[in-house]
């Protein structure tokens, strides 16, 4: 009881944000998973509060853990006093249905976005790359071509008129002279 009182006093003084990630056994049914998470919620609410909870669902593991190839990923964002992390760690270590867990302090200015609401990167990438690769080259080519054509036309266009005028003058002059 004395420990709990101390925890309560500390919780008022300073709370720290933590992120907890769990991997549950894939053999659990959905109802069992819900029960498990409710228990964990209540356990944390005894000392702090839950700011976000996200269930990723069943995912393939990168390597085998305890004869399991798949696992149910769950992410929690919680606020608890720093001294309570030991108890959370112990609580998860003892649990046989939690394959693996991670407790991490959250850095400043961190906002959790849910797994289902994340944008797909693969759709954006080619759209970004294609125009940037194509446009400048085409623009450069056009620019190179256009100014080259334009002065030629301008140079050719005025010259015949001027030449005609000069020729006429010369011819008139020549006629007069002759």
């Amino acid at each position, binding site marked *: 009881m004395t420990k709990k009182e101390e925890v309560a006093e500390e919780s008022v003084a300073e709370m720290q944000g933590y992120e907890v990630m769990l991997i549950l056994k894939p053999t659990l049914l959905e109802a069992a998973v819900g029960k498990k998470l409710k228990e964990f919620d209540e356990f944390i609410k005894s000392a702090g509060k839950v700011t976000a909870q996200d269930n990723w669902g069943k995912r393939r593991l*990168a*390597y085998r853990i305890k004869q399991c190839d798949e696992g149910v990923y769950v992410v929690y964002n919680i606020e608890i006093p720093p001294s309570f992390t030991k108890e959370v760690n112990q609580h998860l270590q003892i649990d046989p249905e939690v394959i693996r867990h991670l407790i991490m302090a959250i*850095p400043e200015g*961190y906002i959790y976005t849910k797994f289902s*609401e*994340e*944008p797909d*990167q693969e759709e954006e990438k080619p759209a970004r790359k294609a125009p940037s690769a194509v446009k400048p080259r085409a623009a450069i080519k056009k620019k190179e071509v256009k100014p080259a054509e334009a002065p030629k036309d301008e140079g050719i266009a005025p010259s015949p008129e001027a030449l005609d005028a000069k020729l006429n003058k010369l011819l008139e002059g020549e006629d007069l002279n002759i």
Partner: protein
Amino acid sequence: MAKYIFSTNQKFPPGKRRCTFCTNQMKDIDYKDVKTLKHFLNAFRKIKGHYYTGVCLNHQKKLSNAIKRARHMALVPFTN
């Protein structure tokens, strides 16, 4: 978490590549966005040296921590 912006500095030679996290103004690196982390892993899934990726020392430390966390949670393999 949804900040997986990435540009490979392939146009620069290995010694002169810029830090992609500094250019995108990312203070912290999340261990959950596997797509960015995979750019900094080898074919053997080892962490690439910052000489080849251009990551500054401040971000390289954070990157290595993020990759180690991702390995622990089986999001990224240790070896291949």
